[in-house]
């Protein structure tokens, strides 16, 4: 078994605008099972952060427990990271974000970590609209504890041992829209062409941005009869659109046939361009988004792509009207301005 990746890279690979190589965004060698979907999502995150020219030390990764929650070790090795308790990543993220609003926050979780033990924290994170990109690596099972059905397993889906799941599934994307999340998308670990622009857009979104990424557990949930296997997902995928993320002040390089292209302007001035594949769907209109999801569910299809976006959403700092300087940079003199300031305030109250 190889524990270290060779240090050589393809000599022709470009540097990004910061002068970093893609290698500078990698982490240590994965210890997940060979072929695990989670590793592909890690690769997509590396590519997205490299292309977005993110300074690695300006980003913090947070996760809970699970194979999915282990992945932050395998990407962005030069960024901050906190591997928290099962289902408790949202509260750690909230604390971190309140203390230092200057970092970018990337939450990585699993369907077990989010939809079972962490459900309480998850819904409040959305309610508070924390500025974080929250990725669920969704394999319909508890991979780390050997593949028990999770709350996102579809009703009727068959486990590797042959038992059929009798329960309704929780659709995390539908829930997120319902709770008022400002950015909701679904994707597939095996579709980087779609996943990478979605990750970039989510990172650019100012508030809670959620991506439910179907990510097959190759060891415990890739069997015939499972609805989260590579084969099943490939055969039942149905996308809202094809996407291209256009960062701020960049020329558009992708060629679009006239008329078919739409765009959403992101808060920071970048664009998410898309070529619609669904009729009667408009990602900025909640009803049409919810309708498109229901329609796909009824047809037994998995709707992927950006589903809903609201670029006017206000994040927690805006809601609470906090100081624009991060809390961890405020010194004692800022926080205890002294007797004169107190007297001034008292005076203003008379």
């Amino acid at each position, binding site marked *: 078994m190889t524990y270290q990746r060779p240090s050589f890279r393809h000599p022709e690979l470009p540097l990004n605008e910061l002068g970093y190589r893609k290698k500078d965004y990698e982490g240590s060698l994965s210890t997940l099972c060979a072929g695990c*979907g989670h590793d592909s999502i890690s690769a997509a995150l590396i590519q997205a952060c490299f292309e977005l020219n993110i300074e690695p030390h300006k980003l913090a990764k947070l996760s809970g427990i699970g194979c999915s929650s282990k992945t932050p070790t395998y990407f962005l090795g030069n960024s901050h990271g906190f591997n928290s308790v099962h289902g408790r990543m949202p509260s750690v993220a909230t604390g971190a974000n309140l203390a230092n609003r200057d970092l970018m926050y990337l939450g990585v979780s699993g369907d077990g970590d989010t939809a079972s033990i962490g459900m309480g924290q998850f819904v409040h994170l959305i309610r508070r609209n924390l500025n974080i990109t929250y990725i669920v690596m969704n394999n319909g099972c508890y991979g780390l504890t050997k593949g028990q059905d999770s709350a996102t397993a579809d009703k009727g889906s068959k486990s590797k041992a042959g038992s059929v799941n009798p329960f309704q599934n929780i659709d995390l994307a539908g829930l997120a829209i319902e709770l008022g999340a400002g950015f909701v998308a679904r994707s597939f670990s095996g579709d980087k062409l779609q996943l990478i622009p979605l990750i970039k857009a989510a990172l650019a979104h100012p508030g809670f941005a959620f991506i439910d990424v179907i990510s097959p557990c190759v060891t415990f949930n890739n069997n015939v009869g499972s609805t989260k296997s590579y084969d099943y997902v490939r055969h039942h995928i149905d996308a809202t659109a094809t996407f291209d993320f256009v960062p701020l002040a960049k020329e558009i390089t992708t060629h679009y046939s006239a008329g078919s292209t739409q765009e959403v302007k992101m808060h920071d001035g970048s664009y998410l361009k898309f070529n619609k594949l669904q009729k009667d769907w408009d990602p900025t209109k909640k009803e049409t988004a919810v309708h498109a999801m229901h329609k796909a569910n009824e047809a037994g299809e998995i709707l992927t792509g950006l589903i809903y976006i609201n670029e006017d959403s206000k994040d927690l700092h805006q809601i609470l009207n906090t100081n624009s300087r991060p809390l961890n940079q405020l010194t004692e003199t800022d926080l205890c301005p002294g007797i004169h300031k107190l007297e001034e305030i008292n005076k203003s109250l008379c």
Partner: protein
Amino acid sequence: MQPTNIKNPEYFHKVVDCQYACPAHTPVPEYIRLIAAEKYTEAYMINWESNVFPGVLGRTCDRPCEPACRRGRIEAEPVAICRLKRVAADHKADVKKHMPSAPFPSNGKKVALIGGGPASLTVARDLAPLGYEIHLFDEQVSGGGMMRSQIPSFRLPEEVLSEEVNFILDMGIHSHFKTYVKSLREILDKKYDAVFVGTGAPRGKDLPDLPGRWDAKSNIHIGIEWLASVAFEHIHSIGKKVIVVGGGNTAMDCCRTSRRLGGVEVKVVVRSPFAEMKASPWEKEDAMHEDIPILDCHVPKTFVVEDGKLKGMTFEKVHAVKDENGKRSLVSTGEPDVFIEADDVLLAIGQENTFPWIERDLGLEFNKWELPSVDPVTFQSTIPSVFFGGDSAFGPKNIITAVAHGHQAAVSIDLYCQGKNLNERLHPMVNLVSQKMGIHEWAYDSKIVDDLRYVVPQAEKAITLKDRKKEVELGFDVQTAFKEAQRCLNCDVQTVFTESRCIECDACVDICPTSCISFVPNEEEDALRLHLNAPAKNKNQDLYVSDALPTTRVMVKDEDVCLHCGLCAERCPTSAWDMQKYLYQVTKAGSCSHIR
């Protein structure tokens, strides 16, 4: 693109860059692994089978393998392939017991070999075990050809050469030394079943028309003749000031030999710019290390002779100019001519073939350059029983080329003597074996080290310049040899893809450190090369393309900078990738393999 046919033996052969570039196709990574495993005898025998003179070549080979080495495409320097070969030779145990030993049962056929250089000796080695009676003729006192007469002892000790020459002569070869063959007709009249001509390119070029050339004959020497006279101990000294004219390996050997025979101010003077000189970079370095300046862009104009005594030479200074077609020529800089003092001048400006002993009425055709018409595959001349090889066939090359020619000529002679078609040659012997030992265990050492190339230590200059026979290079010690061997990327351990197993999970794409693997829509090669995860600009390296996968895409692997690290196969959940060791051996005469 069409799916790659990996059943074609040449496909994976080409991936093993060093072996592919070696004229004799020595299985390089195989012997490097054996050196790392301290199996020097086995490493030696792999070499001996392919290139016949591992000890000689480990010191002197022109090493076409090294510029081809994959490692040179991912970092600054290739693996020290050549000097590792020497390690096998230096540390081998008894190898003779692994070689075919005479007497061999006779097959009733007789073959004459004219010349005793590496080409002829290779023919002898390949044919003797098959029962041929071999008669080898050479005008020198012992075998080896230019390896003995030209290559100086400080690069190639006499014992090393003799040992390997004797391995062959001991196979019951009838050697006729000190015998100059003055007539091919006489040889043909002796009714040999076949004749092989391996007489080399023995004539050194001169500057016969340069003013002063014939006025001080005794101090103006033809480089290769002078080197032979030194080797056979007819010449023991040279003047203090020496000019060596020329920029190839003969020039480098002449100047370094001069330094050992009393030359103090030895200068190499060459027409072409330094970077374009024929000598290898390491030869130039070694010369400069011995305080020999190389003056480039100097064209010889006159020999300056006073009172019948050589005083030096004048040169015109030139620079390289390219015309609009990119053709480069040397044009005078207009500066005054340069005079350089000299007691002796050595001319090392090239060699030519010459066949004064071949009668032109025998039916043996010569082309306009006075080279025999020789078939490049069979090495047969226009007289069916006469074959050529080595420098005598297509002009001066090097030892390893002579050996490669010898092998092929031996195959032809064997076919010819059996009355078979010379063009029906056997395919190479190939073998492809999985290296899988466990889920993530390989039978080869797949770890990639970052070590930079190790330098071969040299003996002190103060000692080597005093003794012409003292070998300069000391060779790697075994510890350094191990570290250098670990730099080899095991390019013969092939990445073999089975599309029916692939579930398109992307794991191999994600893990590959050098972005070799892509899953993309199929296109024509030129377009495909641009649409991969990393551009595949090196067209000398193939794309390995699968048949269509369930998503209609194809797997495309650019062989260019694959590290053969095995990570793709380790991360593949279905073993669609496997690491398989590919052994490619050129089929020798009688298709006998000395290694079992």
